[in-house]
């Protein structure tokens, strides 16, 4: 962090700007909660349980079945024989317990808003892309672009993940029990990533905001990603979050590193040419 505040752009107050736009969190008035209507959501009973066998079904058929079962009030659905096929469980905008017995292919459980998903196997690229709320727990490994552009919720992989984990994420938490590849947290805007193992090169490259915690070795930080101070508040949050994450691994919180945005690239267009060089 040394030297960041000495910049001319800081003196000019450019870093005090408040981000405006669609990525901003909207604060709702709790008293108006009853007025909210959530389109396409249904009341479900978590004790009402059924099974879908995906052996001979494609993703459209599986997703339609899940949707129809939600409409009928089923709150717990077990998906058998997913066979690493793509795009299963996409677009679930409802409370639901989805238990996947096996592995998913690409784009599994993308754009979900609310369900709790447990996957006993592995997931392919872009798992839970654009997830808005809920919780996803993966027992094994995950491919690249894990949690790309998520807005909220908890996305947990107990194994290792590929490259570009949390790319463009705008909120929520990603927890990885193992290692992560290159460009983790690339261009992330909000939210938190916890990697308990080692991380590849260019960690947090061009991140606007958000926080990345790393338990293992960091190969290198990307442009404008800098190490921050881990506070007591951070440790308390990590302790809480790791408990919720169900990762059965002893973690020494005193060794966790914290990576944040240096915020030099943040106002890149407003920087002088010499400052741009410095920022990169």
């Amino acid at each position: 962090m040394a030297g960041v505040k000495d910049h001319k752009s800081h003196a000019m107050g450019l870093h005090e700007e408040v981000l405006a736009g669609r990525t901003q969190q909207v604060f709702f008035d709790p008293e108006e909660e009853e007025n909210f209507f959530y389109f396409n959501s249904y009341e479900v009973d978590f004790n009402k349980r059924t099974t879908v066998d995906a052996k001979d079904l494609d993703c459209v058929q599986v997703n339609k079945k899940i949707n129809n079962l939600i409409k009928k009030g089923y709150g717990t659905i077990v998906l058998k024989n997913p066979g690493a096929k793509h795009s299963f469980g996409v677009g679930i905008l409802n409370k639901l317990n989805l238990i996947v017995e096996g592995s998913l292919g690409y784009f599994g459980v993308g754009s979900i808003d609310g369900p709790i998903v447990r996957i006993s196997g592995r997931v392919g690229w872009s798992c839970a892309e654009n997830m808005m709320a809920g919780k996803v727990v993966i027992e094994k490994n995950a491919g690249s672009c894990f949690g790309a552009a998520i807005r909220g919720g908890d996305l947990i992989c107990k194994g290792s993940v590929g490259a570009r984990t949390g790319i463009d994420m705008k909120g929520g938490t990603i927890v990885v029990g193992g290692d992560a590849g290159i460009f983790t947290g690339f261009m992330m805007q909000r939210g938190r990533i916890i990697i308990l193992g080692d991380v590849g090169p260019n960690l947090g490259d061009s991140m606007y905001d958000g926080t990345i915690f790393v338990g293992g070795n960091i190969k290198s930080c990307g442009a404008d990603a800098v190490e921050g101070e881990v506070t007591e508040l951070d440790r308390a949050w990590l302790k809480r979050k790791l408990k919720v994450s169900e990762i059965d691994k002893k973690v020494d919180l005193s060794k966790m590193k914290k990576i944040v945005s240096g915020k030099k690239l943040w106002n890149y267009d407003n920087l002088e040419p010499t400052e741009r060089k410095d920022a990169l």
Partner: protein
Amino acid sequence: MCGIAGLIHRDKSTNIGGEMLNMLQSLKHRGPDSTGYALWGDNNSNDYILRFKVGENVKEGSSAKNEDISVYDERKELVNSEIQNAGATIIEEKRVTPYSFRYIISCDDDLLELSKKIESVEMTEILSLGKSLELVKDIGDATVVANQYGITNFNGTHAIGHTRMATESGVDIRSAHPFWGYPFSDVAVVHNGQLTNYWNTRRTLEKKGMRFMSDCDSELIAVYLANKIRDGYDLDDGMRQSLDDLDGVFTYLVATKDKLGMAKDYMAAKPMVLYESDKLVALASEEVAIRSLLPHEIDTYDPFEGEVKVWQA
């Protein structure tokens, strides 16, 4: 987007033709233009298996020019006399398609002169030349090509394959994968990605006497590795060096008579899923391809950026 797949059995010879067919058919959506197989069979003899073509498959979607079928016979006869001129003997010859042939020949181990002579015949390209490698590729999906070339029951130890979506060169056999590591026996490569320093590297390799048959950037990897082998590199080191010398995004598979290797570029931009056990290694652009061999739950993972791995048969 293309699909690549590879498998190697560590303790047995089995129907790798059928296994690779299943893997590539499940990757069809990644590349519908052409499909190719490189299969390492059980040939224990000292003779070489030569696969070559004297024309292109001209059908819907192909960018090849239409030729009268009679020219194929003329070219085949010319190839036969060039083989004899090179001092080699044809032991067996078989026409697989109107434009494609499989020969068994007896020759010495210096394949460069023989290859040059064969390819001096117009429109003739050696698809593979080796003691156990058999390489077939054509327009169509995995089933079409496997049936056309009769490889659905091909026994061997390891194989690589490719389903191609043509992006930077034509839809024809010469641009289809795999590529043979000319002029080295039993070397072939498949690739998913784009190489951005193709022309510079190609010019450098051409100055060293290496030959290119297509404008497909993937051929560069085969030629590059062949050049490394010529320079005395072992496969592992040549592949590691390729990560620095080749620019772009790529994941590729290469196999030799008894090895299968994979390399992933430093950006990890192209997918690869890997399953590894004591008896079998299977890897593919998507796990669904591996599941066509192993439908039960298995442990797989994505190799990280800059990773190179080589397995022995």
